[in-house]
């Protein structure tokens, strides 16, 4: 029982991270029709920025988190502005290959800058866990879950309630019609990519200090984000949120009770299962069969 509870705690923490990654990717995917291969790099970028700010510049931990996310937003905006803006109207394969090129370049720059050695980040949380009636929860994991939840809620509110969010939803439904109604598409795309990148950087900044920060950490994160998008459907924030937590639970339980070596395969097996049983995806209403 104790063990099961620990798995649940881990699943909630990871689920929050997966949801953040998935939401960022699904927005970019849904609104811009771009398969963003740099997503994992934004994730590790966030983690490295927290490392640099906390361990090298001795900035306050919480301020560092906010700064890392802001830097992620800025980097995302830069990528959109320099690479994607020129590729409007290019077919999906071309855009995808450009993003793959950017991913290769970014990952190797990162490795050059930070070396291949894994880094750890000191956190201000007490090492003694929070004890609740015989069950103990590490403070840092609780914090990750709480911040992730707040960010998910804020993103949902941004897309659902604000003027910019309405423009984003309109572009998602029909970008030509949105443009005819006076939506500034360039602005929508820039904000979408920056927002998605910021969420990925925030996810890395949150999870990096819990584990370690290493150059390859983004690859697996990007694959998880892809899995979440398949589960949740394109462009859907609730779908990505549920998909993220679902993936985390399946991974944790699979690793705990089936085989820890296949932990990272669980999500992909789930995808393949979903495709066999229900190719339209778990939550998406829209048909996506060709």
């Amino acid at each position, binding site marked *: 029982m104790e063990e099961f509870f620990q798995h649940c705690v881990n699943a909630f923490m990871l689920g929050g991270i997966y949801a953040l990654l998935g939401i960022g990717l699904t927005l970019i995917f849904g609104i811009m029709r771009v398969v963003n291969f740099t997503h994992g790099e934004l994730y590790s970028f966030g983690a490295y920025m927290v490392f640099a700010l906390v361990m090298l510049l001795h900035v306050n931990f919480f301020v560092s988190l906010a700064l890392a996310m802001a830097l992620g937003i800025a980097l995302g905006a830069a990528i959109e502005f320099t690479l994607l803006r020129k590729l409007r109207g290019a077919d999906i394969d071309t855009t995808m290959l450009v993003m793959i090129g950017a991913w*290769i370049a970014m990952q*190797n720059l990162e490795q050059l800058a930070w070396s291949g050695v894994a880094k750890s980040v000191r956190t201000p949380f007490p090492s003694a866990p929070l004890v609740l009636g015989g069950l103990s929860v590490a403070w840092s994991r609780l914090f990750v879950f709480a911040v992730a939840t707040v960010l998910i809620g804020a993103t949902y509110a941004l897309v659902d309630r604000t003027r910019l969010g309405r423009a984003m939803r309109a572009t998602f439904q029909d970008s030509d019609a949105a443009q005819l109604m006076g939506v500034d598409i360039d602005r929508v795309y820039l904000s979408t990519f920056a927002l998605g990148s910021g969420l990925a950087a925030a996810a890395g900044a949150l999870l990096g200090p819990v584990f370690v920060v290493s150059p390859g950490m983004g690859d697996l994160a990007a694959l998880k984000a892809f899995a979440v998008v398949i589960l949740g459907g394109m462009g859907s924030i609730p779908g990505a949120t549920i998909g993220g937590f679902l993936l985390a639970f399946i991974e944790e339980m699979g690793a705990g009770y089936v085989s820890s070596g296949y932990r990272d*395969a669980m999500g992909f097996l789930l995808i393949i299962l979903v495709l066999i049983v229900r190719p339209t995806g778990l939550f998406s209403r829209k048909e*996506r069969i*060709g």
Partner: protein
Amino acid sequence: MRRAATAALLAFLISIPLWVGNLYVLHVLIVTGIFTIAAMSLNLLLGYTGQLSLGHVAFFGIGAYVSSLVSLGFSVHLAPDWLVTLNPQPVWFAMLWAIAISGFCGWAIGRISFKVRGAYFVIVTISFAEVVRLVALNWDELTNGPMALNNIPPLSLSIPGVIDFSFIGKVPNYYLVLAAAIVAYVVIARLVHSQAGRAMIALRENEPLAMSVGIEVTRYLVLSAVVSAAIAGMAGALYAQYIQIVDPNIFLFIYTVTMVIMVVVGGKGTLAGPIVGGMIFGLLPEGLRSLEIPPELQWVAYGVLMIVIVSIMPSGIVPALARWWNDRVHANARPAEASQADARQAAQ
């Protein structure tokens, strides 16, 4: 014209070991050739049916593993008290198994993943490759996990009393890979120019329209996936018997990227495209290596070059050259002939 160019290219390729003495150069050419075969097989899917598969390295790796395992022999528990043992088999037999099993995996994955299109298809194929990599990493008993399969025997042909020859060393392997590449090219060319090939192109151009004239979309997609996977498996088997060691890193995403970029830069949907692209991106890393800059910077340059080439020539080198050639021919042709050709084209 085309026939002469093909003959000249073949003669050039056959002559290379005669005047290139440097074994390292031959090694690079062999590996480039193997990846070019893989790129040619990917082109069938990516170029002719229009499906961007980013899991193609899975078939390459499956081919490498199957061929190695059959030629080395294995014994594995499929259930706690069900031990399956295979004694070492001849390498040519192992390679046939590699081709068959890769083709079967292509069929199975095709059946599942062709239910979705576009970006979803891309993600499903990436996931498939990742699952296969994790299986190779974790199924220690069969694959030796990260410890790799070692001492894989090279291909040898022996008919007792007649011939006994092992493909050891660079020159025999160069010709082996060249022969395999020619076989793969001919198979793909025949398929593409057959009725099935026209069906594939039709559904690439307009799937609903192709369906409406009675083309069974899934059947042709799966057919191309099977052929493509089988050829990729053959390339993997060649790789395994040449390098003589296979580890789970063979499934890394970067190899798929290499194949995709070879196809796209050369020109997807053209038979010559993957060969041109294969030459460029097979030799480019070696060129960058000679610049004596840190390996990370070489890869940064690789990524940046990829962005630049794809942005400048989204349809690839071969189509761009073909367009340029056509324009020249048309400009020189007599006006009457040209207008006749135009009229014929309009009538069709």
